[in-house]
């Protein structure tokens, strides 16, 4: 009964609200890899082959539309994420992209990954940063799974798993 009431409440809520919640959220994760920065950057910038280093990605389909580059990630756990490449800068070894749509519980997600030389010789430091909003667009009460915490946890999970496996892949021969 309680569930039903919640559903009805949802149904009568105005759907004309803002495109996202009011407070942007941030996740920043870093890993040190014992591999040459050029080698690590080559993996990151290969926008159409994320499955080569991210363990949650089953396959990546690259496409171009109106001069822009997109990828459709099919996840091992089911579901897809459709992403747009913003830039891939070889000089700064910085890749910028955003999520167009997908299964992550986030809104207005944009992100960058940088590769820097060091701290040791032949080592790389990779930093993955995301800025995004929760899914729920209205005032509290916020439905479970659509709040700030759910968004942060999901992105943290993606970054942690991705960077750990990137290290493994880049350090292996």
């Amino acid at each position, binding site marked *: 009964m309680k569930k039903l009431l919640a559903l009805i409440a949802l149904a009568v809520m105005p759907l*004309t*609200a*803002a*495109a996202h919640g*009011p*407070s*942007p959220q*941030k996740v920043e994760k870093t890993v040190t890899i014992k591999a040459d920065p050029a080698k690590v950057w080559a993996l990151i910038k290969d926008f159409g082959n994320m499955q080569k280093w991210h363990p949650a990605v089953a396959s990546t389909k690259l496409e171009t539309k109106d001069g822009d580059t997109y990828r459709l990630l099919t996840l091992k756990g089911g579901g897809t994420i459709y992403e747009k490449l*913003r830039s891939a800068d070889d000089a700064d070894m910085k890749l*910028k992209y955003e999520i167009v749509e997908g299964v992550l519980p986030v809104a207005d997600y*944009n992100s960058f990954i940088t590769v820097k030389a060091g701290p040791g010789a032949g080592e790389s430091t990779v930093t993955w*940063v995301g*800025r995004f909003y929760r899914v729920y*667009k*209205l*005032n*509290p009460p916020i439905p479970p799974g659509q709040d700030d915490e759910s968004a942060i946890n999901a992105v943290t999970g993606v970054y942690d798993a991705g960077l750990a496996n990137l290290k493994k892949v880049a350090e292996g021969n």
Partner: protein
Amino acid sequence: MKSLLIIIAALSTCIAWSCQAGSFAYISNQGNNTVSVIDLASNQVIASIEVGKAPVGVATSAALGRTYISNVDGQSITVIDSQHYQVLQELPLHGSPVGIALSPDSKTLYVADWFEDKVLALDTADLTQQRVVSVGKAPAGIIVSPDGKQLYVANRDSNDVAIIDTASMQIVSRIAVGEHPFGLGLSRDGKQLYAVNVYSNSVSMIDTQTLKVSTIKVGEHPYCVTVSTDGSRIYVTNTQSDNVSVIDASQQKVISIVPVGGYPEGISFDHANQRVYVANWFDNTVSVIDASNNKLIATIATDKQSRAFGQFIQETAH
């Protein structure tokens, strides 16, 4: 000798009344619910004040000795005594306050409610006295004309700017701008209004008399804007290119791009020292730009996820 005595007398009055001459920036830090107070003479953080949850908007008045902070997740306004850097009150609101601005006479505090598509007008002498106007979708930046008669509201999800008559609290006009207008800026003479279009990567320049609009391209995902003392320069934060576009207002073009910290959001012009202050959300810092040469001259550590949305510099009476 006589002037020395006057100076000493003035100084001791200041000490007795705890008055602070100079300019101060109030930087809202979304990530740990604080406001950093920066003394613009030294560019040092001199106080950190705990406010409500997810502070974003800032409005400040030297005449009142007050700074108002909108706490969007806390659904409240924090009132700060800006003489003693203490919280006087946290006023609960029904909605989610984002944009916040004071009338030039400091008698009225305007608060934009992001989700409920309205703007509140609060009497600063008695904050329970509130008037309300319904506006477009997701009102974001707000600013008041120098004569106090008009309030400008950026309706982010309606892609327009509403002009509200403050006496009647009625919308008198709506001006179409670019996609997703967020921050607003106004020249000191009130003749030029600027709206930053987040999705269009542009700024709309609106002549407040003729309501004619021209558009200037800036960097990626721009957020906020401020105007120099004489109105000749416009400064825009580009959140996704980590820099500030400097626009020549008469030529209507970008003349300089100044690299600042990560995800720059709020920006205000320091008229006393001719500097530009920029809150960097990603870096937890404030960048200081010398307006005479558009060079970055200082970076000040603040606190988590600095936003400082609105006119956050208080120029205190001497």
